[in-house]
């Protein structure tokens, strides 16, 4: 800390560093995705329970129904967004080296986006496949 010999004001030094402004959006997005995930997860587990032991053809037929692709993509997007928001908080709490912290936060955000994209494209390929 070099506060005493710095000509910048206290506010100027911390502006943009803390959770002010962006913290509320993070918190709100975490809750909004949480609420969305409650019905999505119940649907998901019930569906997978129904598909236990199903063949490739049966799962494909299920994926071409009107409900499954919509719910699955919603689950992937809401779930992975919720995951990266939560993982960011966990990383920020436990990883104190700035370099490692930011590397992990960036990796988790890009990784979650990539996973959502791969999963969504897989769902669409099956749903619209011939």
């Amino acid at each position, binding site marked *: 800390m070099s506060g005493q010999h710095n000509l910048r004001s206290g506010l100027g030094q911390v502006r943009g560093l803390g959770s002010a402004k962006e913290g509320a959006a993070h918190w709100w997005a975490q809750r909004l995705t949480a609420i969305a*995930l409650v019905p999505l997860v119940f649907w998901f*587990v019930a569906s*997978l*329970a129904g598909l*236990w032991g199903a063949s*490739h053809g049966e799962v494909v037929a299920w994926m071409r129904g009107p409900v499954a692709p919509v719910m699955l993509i919603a689950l992937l997007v809401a779930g992975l967004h919720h995951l990266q928001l939560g993982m960011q908080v966990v990383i920020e709490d436990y990883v104190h080296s700035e370099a490692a912290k930011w590397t992990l936060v960036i990796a988790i955000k890009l990784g979650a986006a990539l996973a959502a994209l791969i999963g969504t494209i897989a769902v669409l390929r099956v749903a619209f496949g011939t």
Partner: protein
Amino acid sequence: MAQDDRPLSPHLQVYRPQFTSVLSILHRMTGVALGFGALGLVAWLAALAAGPDAFAVAQGAARSWLGCLVLVGFTWALFYHLCNGIRHLFWDAGMGFELETARLTGYGVVAASFLLTALAWLAGLLGSGGAS
């Protein structure tokens, strides 16, 4: 102590674990675990899209005894995180902060997580026996 070495929150080591604090850290641990579960789901979807051969490999892994064990673990983690997440949403709304209430809802969450896990697997195993 140098400023850089000061412990930052959550500084768990100094607290004796309590029922509610164990549930709290379990929420984080199940959340992190479910990140790996999400990767499993994406891999399963990719295998489904790749075709019957890749899907057979994925299903074979899922139905091995180790696969089932991991999936039961993920099911419980998912239901625990979901139920405790609902508990968190009530806290966000300003409800259920009294110690006794927090303890009771904690027991409720644990009971519900095991019940829902058992229900899901019962439905899956019984249902597949009848369907195929």
